[in-house]
């Protein structure tokens, strides 16, 4: 029995199994990294909060009927108080805000990685006209200040959060594809790609087996970092009141806090809470991104902590190492032959 003759379902199954094992191993390595634990924990927490928001949140912030007294200070019923202008439970808003942040951030981050990878590989590997076109577009994208452009486009295209994601993706792939392209150029000229070409590999095989895996560390890292960046941008947009008007997001909470008199009445928690939400999401995604880069990049040696190693080295141990290299007094050859005789 060989793989070739197996039915397609079984081959798919073994493929998926391999992938699942690989993914599992990958997460284990991230977890094993000293910086990975915090990132992974916080991200999983955020995902749980986002998915189970209706069960976690004590009130439904979308429900107009579910409102209480305005401007309450934090208490057991309202851990973060209520808003001054509308009387919505701030804690529940915070919980629901996780959803939009994660959806917009992760979706846009993944799509940007996808688009950036395809265009970057195309520009680098195919070259010629495609390269020129793509790189000139990137140059244009990088000179237009992005937030104003996003604002103009939401004005023209609409403010539904799917449209916002689309705009972020359309404007955000430039930097990544430029980086991917320069990496692809390096890999493309490497001897192992040449060897594969000599072995008769098709362009498709070279792209999928040699070039794309070579950029994977950059891609995965940029997905995480890109998601973090998009979360900040989305929060900024919502803060300006230009996000999806039907959704509660952390940025919009900040805007309401500013407009609703949190500053005047000294309700600092109303500002701090969504800020911490944004911070946690962005921080944990960035952490994971950096850890992924370190885990995946074959060139990245774990040079971190050489100073730490130096600090922890005990003088005794070092002396021992140096002394162990000392020449021991040994009989010279002539003495030995004399002894033998």
């Amino acid at each position, binding site marked *: 029995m*060989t793989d070739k003759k197996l039915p397609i379902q079984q081959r798919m199954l073994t493929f998926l199994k391999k992938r699942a094992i690989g993914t599992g191993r990958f997460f284990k390595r991230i977890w094993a990294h000293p910086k990975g634990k915090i990132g992974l924990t916080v991200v999983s927490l955020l995902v749980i909060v986002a998915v189970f928001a209706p069960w976690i949140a004590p009130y439904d912030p979308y429900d107009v009927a579910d409102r209480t007294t305005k401007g309450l200070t934090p208490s057991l019923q309202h851990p973060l108080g209520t808003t001054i202008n509308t009387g919505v439970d701030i804690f529940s808003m915070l919980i629901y805000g996780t959803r939009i942040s994660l959806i917009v951030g992760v979706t846009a981050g993944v799509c940007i990685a996808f688009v950036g990878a395809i265009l970057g590989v195309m520009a680098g590997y195919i070259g010629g006209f495609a390269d020129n076109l793509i790189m000139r577009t990137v140059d244009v994208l990088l000179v237009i200040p992005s937030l104003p452009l996003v604002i103009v486009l939401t004005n023209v295209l609409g403010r539904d959060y799917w449209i916002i994601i689309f705009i972020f993706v359309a404007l955000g792939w430039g930097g990544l594809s430029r980086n991917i392209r320069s990496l692809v150029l390096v890999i493309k000229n*490497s001897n*192992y790609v040449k*060897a594969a070409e*000599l*072995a*008769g*590999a098709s362009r498709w095989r070279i792209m999928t087996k040699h070039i794309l895996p*070579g950029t994977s560390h950059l891609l995965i890292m940029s997905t995480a970092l890109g998601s973090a960046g998009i979360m900040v941008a989305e929060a900024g947009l919502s803060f300006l009141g230009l996000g999806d008007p039907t959704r509660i997001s952390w940025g919009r909470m900040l805007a309401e806090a500013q407009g609703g008199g949190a500053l005047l009445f000294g309700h600092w928690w109303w500002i701090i809470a969504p800020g911490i939400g944004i911070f946690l999401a962005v921080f944990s995604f960035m952490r994971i991104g950096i850890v992924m880069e370190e885990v995946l990049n074959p060139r990245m040696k774990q040079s971190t902590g050489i100073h730490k190693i130096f600090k922890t080295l005990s003088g005794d141990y070092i002396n021992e190492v140096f002394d162990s290299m000392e020449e021991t007094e040994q009989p010279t050859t002539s003495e030995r032959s004399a002894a033998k005789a």
Partner: protein
Amino acid sequence: MNEKTSGSDYILEMENVSVDFPVKGFTAFLKRQKISAVSDVSLRIEKGQTFGVVGESGCGKSTLANTMIGMVKPTAGRVTFKGKNLFELDRKSFKKTRRDMQMIFQDPFSSLNPRFNVHDIISEPLLIRGDATEEEMKARVVELLELVGLSKDDIDRHPSDFSGGQQQRIAIARSIILNPDFLVCDEPVSALDVSVHAQILNLLTEIQEKLGLTYVFISHNLAVVKNICDRMVVMYLGKVMEGGSAKAIFDNPRHPYTLALLTAVLDTDVDKEKEEIILEGDIPSPIDPPQGCRFWQRCPHAMEGCKNVPVPEVEIERDHYVACHHVNGFPDTDLPEGYDRPVKTEEAERKDKSHPLKTEESVESKTDA
């Protein structure tokens, strides 16, 4: 090169092959500059033999190798592999033909994908050909690992776990998995530790004997070439300076450049007084090289005529060709005035200036003034 006309004994023939690359850049575009990497090279490689290509960086030996295996298309000339013109084949038969040719690179680490394990690296050509089952592939990989002196326990390890010599062994195993006839070795040992050079060279000769391969062996070290090559060419700035049977060339080296290269080789016989030839100047740029001999700027015997009278390759003895006016004499036609005056009069002056150690005082007075 006209003693044999039938191509049957030759696995690869190159006829008047030239490769030019355009120079990139705005000003270069206006002047239409080009790099002449390989210029008018003809050679024939016999089946089962080892053919040496010797030269320094920029001499075009790598471009020549890439042209042989069809990675670079020549600007002019024909490359015939097993009787088929390599660049007139359609895509499919080109790919099929090229399976019979493989290459070993200088830096073994960069020639192995760091993300693949040994099995995936070695079996890749087989996988691409696509007519072997998993088991067959694995068996073949194990067989090859043993052939190149590695253990079958290494099959799951990654390139970075191996030393340079072992990595080169892996690369060799990959290159012979499809049973090619023709193997191009591009400086296969120069990136390795001195003490493993011999291991790799011996492995290559051993494999050649076992599988009846034809080698093209590229090197800058004449001693290596002497010991394993049957025929060879010495290249300089894209042109063949001297070529033919290795024995003839080493017994009777004639080209000034070959002589200079020979003195750079290690000789452990330290008691023998060695005459050293040190060439002046730098290797010139291959952009728009001179019409005449490309070596004239550095040649100790250069004459005025060498600058612009084209140099033909002349057979000075059986299977020994030299392209040098100094050796062959000038042709009878169209010679410029004073062609046989040595260039070195002005060169010698420059040489004196650049070696102030010999005229210490004159320099002293010059700088003080």
